């Protein structure tokens, strides 16, 4: 019985970190689909979300919901600015060059965060207290419920936006064929800007809702970003729902592995799954295979 309770406990906490990976992975996939860029700065928006909320709420003493809104707005502005200044001026650059620029951007954002807020780790207060809720013998924090709720809302909104709104459909058109999209009158450059805005906002939200559970500091973005990217690859970049499933799988297996096998190798688990999936099914668990054009 005890083992079952333990398994349930690990699964629940794994699902909640998995939800975070899913959000970050979705951000990756949105930018990748519209620009073919692997945005290594994605993790930094996760960090910015947490650190900016902390700054507005704890340092400036603003009311938490207001601090959250301001933090998302500020992180999104940084994302938009980054696209305008560093990505958009390079029209025909090779993807590898753009990838290096996102690496530079990530180092820069991390550096500025370190200068502004120092190297300490901080905890954001839980959104609704820290009395655990007992569910079938497993304890979960109210914060986990926040994570599930917010993630569910964002994923639904994301799905509605990309499948049922004109802008969303236009963005998907860009990912299928840029030249054809331009021909039918879609402003491709604006869609790329949009994709950076949406994914930095999503990254910031992920950073905010996880910060009360895991603490935050100027350098949390690197690992979170990479794991989110694992989620996107594992699930298949081309499908949103695949990315979500990939995030949950990584989160749960990581939590089970850390609990049952060894916590030292926790961070390795995501990458081991990644390698296994890449070697068996490179297009991701749920992705459609791409035919190579010669």
């Amino acid at each position, binding site marked *: 019985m005890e083992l079952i309770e333990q398994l349930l406990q690990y699964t629940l906490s794994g699902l909640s970190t998995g939800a975070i990976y899913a959000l970050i992975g979705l951000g990756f996939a949105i930018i990748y689909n519209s620009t073919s860029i692997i945005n290594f700065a994605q993790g930094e928006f996760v960090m910015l979300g947490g650190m900016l909320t902390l700054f507005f709420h704890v340092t400036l003493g603003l009311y938490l919901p207001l601090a959250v809104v301001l933090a998302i707005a500020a992180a999104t502005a940084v994302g938009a600015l980054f696209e305008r200044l560093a990505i958009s001026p390079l029209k025909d650059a090779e993807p590898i060059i753009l990838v290096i620029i996102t690496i530079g951007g990530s180092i820069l954002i991390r550096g500025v965060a370190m200068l502004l807020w120092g190297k300490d780790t901080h905890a954001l207060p839980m959104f609704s207290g820290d009395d655990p809720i007992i569910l079938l013998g497993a304890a979960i924090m109210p914060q986990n419920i926040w994570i599930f709720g917010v993630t569910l809302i964002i994923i639904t909104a994301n799905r509605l936006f990309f499948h049922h709104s004109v802008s969303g459909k236009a963005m998907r058109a860009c990912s299928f064929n840029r030249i054809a999209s331009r021909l039918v009158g879609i402003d491709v450059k604006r869609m790329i800007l949009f994709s950076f805005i949406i994914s930095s906002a999503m990254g910031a939200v992920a950073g905010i809702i996880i910060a009360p559970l895991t603490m935050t500091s100027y350098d949390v973005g690197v690992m979170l970003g990479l794991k989110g990217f694992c989620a996107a690859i594992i699930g298949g970049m081309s499908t949103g729902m695949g990315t979500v499933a990939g995030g949950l799988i990584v989160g749960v297996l990581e939590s089970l592995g850390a609990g049952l096998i060894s916590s030292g190798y926790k961070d390795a688990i995501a*990458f081991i799954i990644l390698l296994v999936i890449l070697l068996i099914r490179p297009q991701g668990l749920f992705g459609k295979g791409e035919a190579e054009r010669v």
Partner: protein
Amino acid sequence: MKRELMKFLVFAAAVLTAPLFLKGGYIVNVLVFVGIYTILAVALNLLLGLAGQISLGQAAFFGLGAYISGVLTATYAANPWVAMVIAVIAVGAIAFALGFPILKLKGHYLAMATLGMGIIVYIIFNETVDITGGPSGLSGIPNLSIGGIVFNTDMKNYYLVWSFVIVTILLSVNLSQSRIGRALRAIHDSEVAARILGVNVRLLKVQIFTVSGIFSALAGSLYAHTVQFISPASFGFNVSIELLTMVIIGGLGSIYGSFLGAAILTLLPELFRTFQDYDIVVYGTVLIVMTMFMPGGLVRGVPLLARSLLVRVKAGLSSEKSV
């Protein structure tokens, strides 16, 4: 061919005489690291610039070379040269074995797989405390020595490391000029076309991956025996990224470009040390600006920039005349 020989001779002469102009001290120490990173950058450039295969896990081979060499000498008291040879062969074998499954992947899938490989190896360095000493590192690694000469000063290490750099560069330039080099470039442009022309694409990709791993392990072993202390932090994800940046900033496919990239990225933080905490901000900015304005790297960017400046100056002069 003659031009390549000239370039190489000038480079080798500059390397051998450089210490005569330096009064020794700290800068020589930094130059030892420039040498080690040059070997690493050249190794990655063979894979990425020549064959077009990305790797975000080069630090894994660097670290494996350093740890195999370090553990064999510090823990098992092996002869450093023997340890170096074992490290290089072992890492070559590992790279060869890993190459077959990993290099089936292309583009960002390959990037992700090599990245995963790098992080897993990094975590293993941290967790196998009994062997590697874990996060606190492994110390007591002996210096290399030949006969009675022990390589225990910066100046001696300079000549040791840079001899290896010169050999690495000679071999790499030779490789890229050879029939195999042309086959690799064909793979870079189109794998299908290369296969149609009779190139054994799969094997050749694995072989260049192995060569890249071997050079990186050599750099790792040199690092272990010159610094005499190693810890996982020197072989993390950020190191793989730095190596990638060196290759891009120097110029993809240019062997001497890799040397430039390694030199600049190793010297920059030293120059910015006076800015203290601002160094990481400056580093990020330089990286963005350089890649934005010189996407072909310094090797192609600087002549291009000079030419366009020249054209502008000439245009300025002639317009003045016409007025």
